[in-house]
């Protein structure tokens, strides 16, 4: 089994504060991993460090993504190589419409792998099909990226982008936060439709609820910047019942 993502002993600081403390984690193709943990445990930091957001200082360890040194790659290179970050707070970009961003992103990826640009008509058909899956109205295509979207619409838009980009590794940062149960099911359906033997998903979540709909292969508890406990999907239920404290005590 080939590892898509191999995090070894990763430490990182943000704003002078040590947030990740020797975190190790390996994701193989075909797997869905969930990372759970209390607020402030470093969950979002992990997702940003993986995607390459500025302002995070790597103080130790290394990360291999598809056999390459992740930290030697710019954020846009990581994306083109197949890493996708679903933002906890998707950014509004007035003046740039959704379909333009989608197409520019797909073409950037294709260009990087020596493929020609997408056919405009076929692309639109593909996007429409994915939008239907995400129960998004077609008017979203011509609207500015996330501008004036409700919280749930933004999250669906993240998943739509993911479905169109077909990443090898999707890191979804609290995609479930702020969603009602219907929206949660739609988002879960989108993520499940991407599951395949070639891909991996890293779900970062605070609650077990999402994991009823996207069933993970592995569940990890993040505490004080490292993996404090790992287990199967049943670990999520145990956390739901017992809270995080017992894990922290053990750790």
């Amino acid at each position, binding site marked *: 089994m080939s590892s898509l993502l191999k995090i070894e002993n990763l430490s990182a600081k943000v704003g002078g504060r040590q947030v990740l403390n020797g975190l190790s984690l390996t994701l193989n193709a075909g797997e869905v991993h969930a990372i759970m943990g209390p607020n402030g445990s470093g969950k979002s930091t992990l997702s940003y460090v993986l*995607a390459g957001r500025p302002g995070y200082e790597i103080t130790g360890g290394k990360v291999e993504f598809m056999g390459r040194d992740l930290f030697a790659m710019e954020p846009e290179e990581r994306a083109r190589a197949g890493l996708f970050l679903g933002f906890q707070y998707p950014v509004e970009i007035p003046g740039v419409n959704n379909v*333009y961003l989608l197409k520019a992103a797909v073409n950037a990826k294709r260009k990087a792998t020596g493929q020609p640009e997408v056919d405009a008509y076929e692309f639109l058909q593909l996007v429409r099909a994915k939008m239907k899956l995400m129960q998004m109205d077609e008017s979203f295509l011509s609207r500015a990226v996330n501008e004036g979207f409700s919280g749930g619409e933004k999250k669906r838009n993240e998943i739509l982008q993911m479905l169109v980009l077909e990443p090898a590794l999707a890191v979804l940062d609290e995609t479930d936060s702020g969603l009602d149960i219907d929206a949660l099911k739609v988002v879960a359906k989108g993520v499940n439709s991407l599951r395949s033997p070639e891909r991996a998903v890293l779900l970062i979540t605070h609650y077990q609820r999402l994991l009823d709909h996207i069933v993970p292969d592995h569940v990890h508890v993040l505490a004080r910047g490292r993996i404090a406990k790992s287990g199967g999907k049943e670990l999520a239920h145990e956390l739901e019942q017992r809270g995080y404290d017992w894990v922290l005590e053990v750790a």
Partner: protein
Amino acid sequence: MIPLPTNRDENWRYANLRPLAKARVEAVAASTPPELNLPPPLPGFERWVFVDGHLASPAPSGAIARALDARVAGAAFAAQLDESIASAGVDFALARINASRGDEVLHVALPDAATACVEVVFVASAPGTAGTSYPRVQIHAGRRGRLHLVERHLGAGAGDAAVNAAVDLALAPEAAVEHSRVQCAGDKASCFDTLVAHVGERASYKLHTVMLGGLTSRSTQFIKLAGRAARCELTAATVANGIQTHDVFAEIDHAAPETTTRELFRGIATDRGKLAFNGKIIVRENAHESDSEQSLKSLLTGAGAEAAARPQLEIYTDRVRAAHGATTGKLDDQMLFYLLSRGIERGTAQALLQWAFIEAAVSRVTPSALREDIERVIVKRLSAVASLDGLLAQS
């Protein structure tokens, strides 16, 4: 000899006035116009073309506008209505020079309740050494008249023309004028203009200024909300690349009750470009229940770029609403990272965000055919660093 403004004059601090001092004040003589490559006419608009201040196209049939000899055109409408304008000081020096030196005037006297769409294209083709070109427009919109006015300034030839334009508008009660003006002069041109508008009771004046060309460009705008419930919507967008200087001074004078202003400025300075927007709003003692909003933002994307977006409020009564915000900054890091995280090239992402920034102002330009023209010019300029193919086709 009319004294010229200097950088010590309050409203001229940011202007590059060197070209004025060097310019030849004589009007460019009329001559056979050069071969022009004009943008396609706007559907539904009568088009007038002036080259170096001289009429260069036959009058459109059934036209509402007229080209008049400057000597018979008489004093400007707004100045007739308001003595303070006619006798004003150094801020109007350039307009007075225009009035004394210019030869021809585009004159629109829109009858009450009439509707018209007029496009005037001013082409500056002669080099500055041949003199200054003096475009001039006079508008009187009658009661409940509706005028859509497009004013374009373009360059031809070597592109080092000197232009001093003057526009004068008077809006009778309940008139509505929408005025889009685009400066796309040659890249070595110096462009100065003075605009005066007198807005009557319940009249509405929308002014959209887009400044893209020229080496030095300064627009001086005075809008007087003279009648009760008069309204002004003022938008300005500028992109200063290379070593361009773009400077807008806009004063809106709330001189009557219940008057409203909505002001939006977006400017981008790249490379060593400089831009300034000075938005002055005066609320007079009797202008109670007036309401003004200003949103002024400029974006710096070059190490040598400079920008100043300055709101200025003078309020002489308590019963008013005035909201203003001004920022000068760099591209939003979060937006940039979001685009990068989708695999977009850094250069493209930056150009895209610049586009999005300026589009907030450009999107207000009407008619849509003109707006699309402008958008193409802007995209082309932003694309100097990255491809934005397909951006407009989709939007």
